[in-house]
């Protein structure tokens, strides 16, 4: 069969994303309908930049969720005769499904790999960023609130981590030799305990005086929290689909480790500012404990800048994951991770540019979307 022309390819790609378009349209229609009741998220729909950002991000989220519907072939399957096939080429077997973006040097479908690659990025980046935020917040709040010696020590440590070249740090943390040392486990043990500490303190500080409510919250946090902690950090309990390979765990730890000092500094700065407000003094004069003040009086009021930073940091993490993959430090060698795919395609770039371009464009659009989303959120949150 004749390979498809470019027009036909794009039309086919468009059709292939049909489930994603439907989901996007649904989300936008519902959101715009109720935007007046949705606070900051709703106001995002007043800003063209924010909407564009949100659309790009949602596009990739939906693609990741519905990858099995969108992709045409499994990510790892190799097809003989499709090695470095041109975009739009058909399988020799006479199947009517073309390789829309061609085949790579192992005869795998570039389009499907790009679609599945979104899963790797979107599985690691948000969770790792949330963890980094938990660590940053849990340490940044006391540093800003107490100031003094705690602040000096913690800021010094943060600066120390920030002063380390990121890529070198990654090489150190992610190399196979490192995996044999106890360092990643120890780091994971330290970093993963923060979300549990964070949530326990959050509820304990608030419901201290009301044990009847408190134990429900603590139970709801501690049982799954400790289970996940033991499973993720030490592999002591089975986790099923949540199980992380040592490789992914290392990436995860590395990303959290690198991101949390920056979050720490942002939170610390914001806390320094907010703690001078009268409502903080009011909380102090009615005898609130320091953690209640930090988590319930200060934290909710710094959410604006933190949400914006979250989006930006997500983009940064996405690039970081791409970089890691590019250096071959990423997930398993065969996985459709975007960074790794770009690296593989790089070697034949001058002859066959098509395997490297789709993942690169995917990476660009996702990060661009996150940055635009952050811009939109910032713009709208300042309009109060």
């Amino acid at each position, binding site marked *: 069969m004749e390979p498809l022309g470019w027009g036909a390819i794009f039309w086919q790609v468009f059709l292939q994303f049909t489930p994603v378009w439907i989901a996007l349209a649904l989300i936008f229609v519902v959101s715009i309908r109720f935007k007046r009741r949705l606070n900051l998220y709703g106001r995002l729909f007043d800003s063209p930049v924010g909407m564009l950002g949100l659309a790009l991000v949602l596009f990739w989220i939906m693609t990741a969720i519905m990858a099995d519907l969108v992709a045409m072939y499994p990510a790892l399957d190799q097809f003989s005769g499709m090695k470095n096939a041109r975009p739009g080429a058909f399988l020799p077997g006479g199947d009517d499904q073309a390789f829309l973006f061609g085949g790579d040097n192992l005869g795998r479908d570039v389009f499907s790999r790009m679609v599945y690659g979104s899963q790797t990025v979107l599985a690691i980046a948000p969770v790792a960023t949330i963890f980094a935020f938990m660590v940053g917040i849990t340490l940044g709040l006391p540093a800003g609130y107490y100031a003094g010696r705690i602040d000096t020590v913690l800021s010094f440590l943060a600066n120390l981590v920030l002063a380390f070249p990121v890529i070198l740090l990654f090489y150190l943390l992610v190399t196979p030799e490192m995996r044999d040392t106890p360092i990643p486990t120890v780091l994971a043990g330290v970093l993963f305990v923060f979300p549990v500490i964070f949530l326990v303190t959050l509820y304990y500080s608030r419901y201290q005086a009301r044990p009847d409510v408190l134990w429900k919250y603590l139970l709801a946090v501690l049982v799954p929290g400790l289970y996940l902690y033991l499973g993720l950090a030490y592999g002591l309990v089975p986790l099923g689909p949540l199980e992380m390979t040592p490789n992914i765990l290392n990436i995860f730890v590395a990303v959290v480790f690198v991101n949390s000092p920056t979050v720490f500094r942002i939170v610390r700065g914001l806390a320094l500012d907010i703690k001078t407000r009268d409502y903080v003094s*009011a909380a102090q004069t*009615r005898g*609130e404990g320091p953690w209640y003040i930090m988590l319930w009086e200060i934290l909710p009021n710094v959410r604006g800048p933190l949400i914006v930073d979250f989006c930006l940091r997500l983009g940064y993490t996405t690039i970081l994951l791409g970089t890691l993959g590019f250096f071959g430090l990423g997930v398993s060698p065969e996985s459709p991770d975007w960074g790794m795919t770009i690296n593989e395609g790089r070697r034949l770039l001058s002859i066959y540019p098509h395997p490297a371009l789709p993942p690169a464009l995917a990476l660009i659009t996702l990060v661009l979307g996150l940055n635009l989303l952050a811009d939109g959120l910032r713009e709208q949150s300042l309009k109060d």
Partner: protein
Amino acid sequence: MAKWDYDAPILEIENLSISFFTRAGEIPAVMDFSCTVERGEAMGLVGESGCGKSTVALGVMQYLGKNGRIVGGSIKYKGRDLSLMSQEELRRLRGSEIAMIYQEPMASLNPAMKIGRQLMEVPLIHEKAGRREARRTALEMVEAVRLPDPERVLDAYPHQLSGGQQQRIVIAMALMSKPSLLILDEPTTALDVTVEAGVVDLVNALAEDFGTSMLFISHNLGLVLEVCDRLSVMYSGETVETGSIEDVFDRMRHPYTQGLFRSIPLPGADKTARPLVAIPGQFPLPHERPPGCNFGPRCNHFQPGRCDAQEVPTFPVPGDDRHETRCLRWQEIDWEAEPERDKGAAAIEPGEIVLKVDDLRKYYEVAANRMFGGEKRVVKANESISFEAREAETLAIVGESGCGKSTLAKVLLGLETASAGKADLGDVDLAHVEVEDRDARTVGSIQMVFQNPFDTLNPSHSVGAQITRALEKFGVGDGPEDRERRMLELLDVVKLPREFARRMPRQLSGGQKQRIGIARAFAGDARVVVADEPVSALDVSVQAAVTDLLTDIQRQRRTTMLFISHDLSVVRYLADRVLVMYLGHVVEIGTTDQVFSPPYHPYTEALLSAVPIADTRVKQRHIVLEGEIPSAMNPPSGCPFQTRCHRKVEVPGDLCEREVPPLRTLPTGNAVKCHLAQDILDRMEPVIELAGTTERA
């Protein structure tokens, strides 16, 4: 200078209307505003926040931003219509003929540039002067605004100067180009009273020297009286009354103007016999203005079908000089009639001693370097403070910023612990127990009302949740349901509808937020409430209502109130006893009558003379203090006030510089910390005198 030889009016504004265009549509900010400023005349614009007075100023400067537009009328500067000028012409005009001074001096100064260079820019750019000449003019100007050591000031960066000095520099900068029109937008609001008095004095003198016309924007009627020749009272975007100071102050012909004067504590007001009369209701939002008279819904003289039937034009008041009022019924209203006042509040007998503070001291140790130690310095924030406060009594603590009144409050509330001394609430020690170590009852029994209504409530929690949380912390009520009920009752107490429990703080006005703050402070049956300038950030018409509420609750619950303030008018109105602080020391203490009549401590004397009083019959002696308040890091030797004291010369020798005077009780009953001999104290004359004895409404 040619540009000063101009005899026609400097500024003529005719039927000016300014609107802002937002997503919600057109919002009129100023409607049908007219005024004329003659050469050398000072015109005051008075009104509450949101009344459009600053918009008028920005309109004159043609700085309305991209949303604002002049939709009607004209602004003529020396006969030329400003809206017809090109951007280039306007720019030349702004720098050299019209200058503007803002509230916050640091907002007008470039923090990265030395004062000298900033001042020199004006002649360099506008007059194409040489560097040396520019420097000389700058030096002259700094001298003209009476800053000490002008050479040093020119070489300083803005942050090296105090707030008052910065504002003087801003004034100097504005006057550099010898403008014909000076616009001052609340120029002294950010300053302390005694510093404010100095700046006002300076503005007055300079205007006279240079013949500059002024547009003076303020919410403070007392200041306007001191500075201006004429004034225009604005309400919700309109001028409601305009005329000369005497006409408007003594023969006001608009209910809003009258309401304003009745809601500020003038000499003669008294919280039991002649309480303030608050203006009911709330300032309308620009897009919710009523039909007809904007003030209608809040006016006692409102006549349905007439006042809300048509737009109200202005009427000239015959016989007066350009005195106009925007009231349909101005000829029918009996302007001399006494307002209805809430009577029945009998004077309260103070009860037992509730709070006893004895020789309380609070020193901070400040190290030069946090991590490696370094030279340690001691800041004496509170030095040997002793006083007693009785049940149901209001004790005012008066002083300017840095006098230690906030530190005292912090120690009492347990946010800091005292370095030495005692503070007992009943038999509970407060001085050395941090609030976290206090039991719930003690915590609830001493609470605070904060100054800034926009800061006192956490924007992220609902109003009800914040009060309920306070109840929970004070150990009041059994269980969530009971606390919910008590929370709603507290809302009743502060006269807010119960629906407010579910509202977020941003949905409340400043006055309403302050009421919630009061509800929260009284949630734990407080025995002592520390009120830190609770109404100073509120609009004048709301202040009286909140003050009333606070005293009502205090009276009913027989709570002791420590009223921290720098506003002596309010203190005189509210307080039973007064404590004056300066640089950590109590310099005078006594009953309100004792403190407000001679003999005074020299600092009290200066404070009293600095407070602007909005009453034309008041004769005030003027004492302008030299210099700035010294830093607590580096206090002067001997008497803390000796560096600025105007009566230091009357003390023989260098006693003031050597020794801290003891707090001695005078025959009149008040105690002062001063070396002045008894006969000098006896000869002191009152600072404030009422010309007539007849009291006015």
